[in-house]
């Protein structure tokens, strides 16, 4: 099976940097295709949760702008005006591997690759695809964050997983630790940055010489490693310059150093909210424009507070109307609502950070019990400054391919993609009810 050429940010970054680290001035607010009319950048935040929903209690009964929120969407009531519910879309891939087929279809547009050594994605996930377009001038092209586990569903290519940061305090240190300079406070440049860059130069030399001796597969792996080192060096170079002068940016309060488990259960809500607070300020400070925040991974068996079994087990084994599965979905929607709260609380000129963002909330399947790939749960909030419809329930009447909606999302970030997906899954049009006139 031939693998399709990958869209990665490698080419984009190499083109920009000409292969060497250069001290770019921050081009923030420069004319860029993917900025809002007011000059604020568009941001993309993926909010993922595992194991689906209960479609009958999820889908709103009415369509259009005056839709009534369903039972499972009640926690989002306060954001109704900025929230679009997409229903009736289907991941059109063979469901060969429960949970993974749907996740791969939704986030890469394609089906799983059944290579000899196991399943693999064929292409990068949309967080990296969007970051290749809008993440080239920020400290981080994109940030992957996991709440319950480190397996955010994020790949730069086959066998190239991007693991998520799971420790809120560690994320705080990375974003707002000693190298951070508050635009209002000034502060000195960290003197160690230059030495750290010299070390990375030596490492890049080793990587380059080693790469020339490798076969194709190992070369691809080492290129990914090299990309990571270049990202890091670029980040250090930018940290030696003045930070962008952004009114909404300031160093947030540090989260607790530890958020310990209680009775053997992870504190999902406290951890997710700590992460959301950091996400909001990372976006407000333009440290990144792309977030992949995973509440819990596909197939996760995380124990929710008060649940009698792990989430995945419950979806299969709970009887009746599955009240515990329902409660888990409500708990996740509570956390999504909190993320929207903190984004909407950041004022940015003509609107809020949420208005300048697109938050895409999704899961890898709909009904967990049977791994359904129709009725894929998909929520969009913020609208990316008017690019996509907000405050509506838009429904596909004919089980259309979810790739149509994903293509609309990618085009909202001015990616000039003619198609999305490949072979049997390819689409060349967006999901029209979603696209603002």
């Amino acid at each position: 099976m031939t693998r399709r050429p990958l869209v990665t940010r490698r080419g984009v970054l190499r083109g920009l940097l000409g292969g060497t680290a250069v001290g770019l001035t921050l081009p923030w607010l420069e004319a860029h295709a993917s900025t809002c009319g007011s000059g604020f950048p568009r941001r993309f935040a993926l909010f993922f949760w595992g194991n689906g929903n209960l479609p009958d209690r999820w889908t709103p009964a009415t369509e259009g702008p005056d839709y009534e929120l369903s039972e499972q969407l009640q926690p989002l009531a306060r954001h109704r005006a900025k929230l679009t519910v997409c229903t009736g879309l289907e991941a059109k891939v063979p469901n060969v591997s429960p949970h993974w087929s749907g996740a791969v279809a939704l986030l890469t547009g394609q089906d799983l690759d059944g290579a000899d050594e196991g399943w693999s994605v064929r292409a990068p996930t949309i967080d990296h695809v969007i970051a290749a377009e809008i993440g080239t001038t920020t400290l981080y092209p994109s940030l992957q964050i996991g709440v319950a586990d480190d397996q955010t569903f994020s790949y730069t290519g086959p066998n190239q997983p991007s693991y998520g940061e799971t420790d809120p305090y560690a994320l705080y240190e990375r974003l707002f630790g000693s190298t951070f300079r508050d635009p209002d406070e000034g502060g000195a440049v960290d003197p160690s940055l230059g030495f750290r860059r010299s070390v990375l130069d030596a490492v890049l030399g080793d990587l380059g010489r080693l790469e020339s001796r490798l076969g194709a597969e190992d070369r691809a792996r080492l290129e990914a490693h090299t990309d990571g080192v270049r990202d890091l060096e670029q980040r250090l170079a930018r940290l030696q310059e003045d930070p962008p002068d952004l009114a909404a940016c300031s160093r947030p309060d540090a989260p607790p150093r530890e958020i310990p488990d209680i009775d053997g259960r992870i504190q999902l809500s406290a951890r997710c909210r700590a992460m959301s607070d950091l996400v909001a300020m990372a976006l407000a400070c333009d440290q990144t424009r792309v977030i992949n925040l995973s509440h819990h991974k596909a197939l996760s068996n995380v124990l929710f507070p008060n649940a009698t079994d792990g989430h995945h087990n419950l979806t299969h084994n709970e009887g009746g109307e599955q009240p515990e599965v329902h409660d888990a979905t409500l708990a996740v929607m509570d956390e999504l609502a909190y993320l929207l709260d903190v984004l909407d609380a950041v004022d940015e000129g003509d609107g809020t950070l949420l208005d300048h963002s697109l938050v895409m909330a999704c899961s890898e399947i709909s009904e967990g019990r049977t791994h359904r790939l129709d009725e894929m749960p998909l929520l969009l909030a913020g609208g990316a400054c008017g690019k996509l419809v907000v405050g509506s329930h838009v429904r596909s009447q004919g089980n259309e391919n979810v790739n149509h909606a994903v293509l609309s999302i990618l085009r909202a970030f001015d990616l000039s993609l003619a198609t999305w997906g490949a072979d049997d899954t390819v689409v060349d049009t967006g999901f029209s009810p979603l696209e603002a006139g």
Partner: protein
Amino acid sequence: MDSALRSLLPLALALAVVGCGDDSASGEPTGAAPVELAPEPAATPGPAHLRRLTTAQYEASARFVLGDGLSMPSTLEPDGEALGFASAAAAIDALSALGVERYEDASYFLADQRIAAGLDGWLPCVPASASDTSCASESLEVLGQRAWRRPLTSDELAVLVGLWGDVATATDPDTGWRYTLAALLQSPHFLYRVELGEGGVLTATEWATRVSFLLFAAPPDDALLAAAVAGELDTAEGRATKVDEMLADGRLDAGIRAFVTEWFHLEKLDALDKDPLLFPHAHPELGPAAREETLQLAAWLGTSDRDWRELLTSSVSFVDPRLAALYELQAPVLDGFGQVQLPDERRGILGHASVLSVHSHSTRTSATGRGLFVRTALLCQAVPEPPADVDTSLPEPDTTSPTLRDRLTTHLEDPTCSVCHLITDPIGLGLENYDAVGRWREIEKGANIDPSGELDGSAFDDAIGLGEAIAEHPSLPPCWSERWWVYATGAPPAAYVTTDWLAERFTGSEHRLRELLRTMATSEAFRAVEAP
């Protein structure tokens, strides 16, 4: 690739033995006189690879370079899983951007500790000033060889000495070491085991590295590297002598423990999520203690040259007071672990809290999960993934179906389910006398547990009989040989004649682990690599 995506791999040995009624596989030698050993079949070279250090290997390597007693970084790139091993995923997965950042953090975390502990007496030569580059070079030659597991080229040395000199000139000599040590530890030559070979075979230092990680779970020490550099490993005799020395070395314990940790996924015991209300024995220290029991048994069986299949049948074990309480035994020692005779209802790893807990849910056992473990890890048989679109829910326990066996009846009667569940569940049901943390029980929800069953034609009465049936299973010797091979080389055997040959030698030695390791490490297949 993350472990979940690779959760069920088509293992090389297909499920041919299952359900075929093949009871002729009787080639089970027990205590027979040594058979004549076949010579090694022609070696098919394995793939040339970069293998990123697993977290455990990174820590062992950092200790070797910087000295014992340092705290290790709390978070590195997570270990993946391929073919059942983190060590195999390490030959496939790319490093993430976050992983790069974490390696950078880790390098400074370690370098700062080393400098705080003092460089005098540790560095071979401590430069007094930034101009003393020849002294710095002398030190870097030694440190570089330990970190990169081979001598540095003069160009590589010059870059590092230059880095040290630049920083030392701008600041002070100690600060120069901070950044130079960081450069050593962030280099791909430290982070990857480079196994590219020359002329179709591993170089002497590459071979030394592969053998050392296999037998000691650590990078090659100064003596082994010196032997490689001196050409002592260029002959089969030289290599065999070295392997024999290493097999007699106490560090073999660490090598066996590292393999078994990966093989049985014992790292999961760090974070067991058992419901403490249902399982009063569940405690954050139970998982690590349970792991220690299994590792001590495996290392003891291996280094005392017992039949390594006793992993499944041994009445000897090693417990601390916490495990003794779980097993209702008198603790052999008040603190730490001591050797014990297990009670009659418990034999080998299938009676260990480690394996039993890892392959259970947080609130109950899993016959399917335990059966899957036996099929895939112990017998190398593939089990298909469940179909996506079936309702997999089990009925709630009630008076008519109180036990798990009763409730699983659906799985075994519905043809959509039974095609796979007949492969796994009857094995797991044989272990139902142990609950989700491994505590003995005879009754579930008021009904007697029936642990009897059948494994590929061998009937068993209970868990003890199940362990014996697995130990005698004809798939075991080739499977265990293959498991070690994948772990050691990061890839399946390029030719299965190699596995068969290893299995024959393993069987011929009456299943002595050291003989298997000796055969493998001294084989031509072990050092043959394709040109990249």
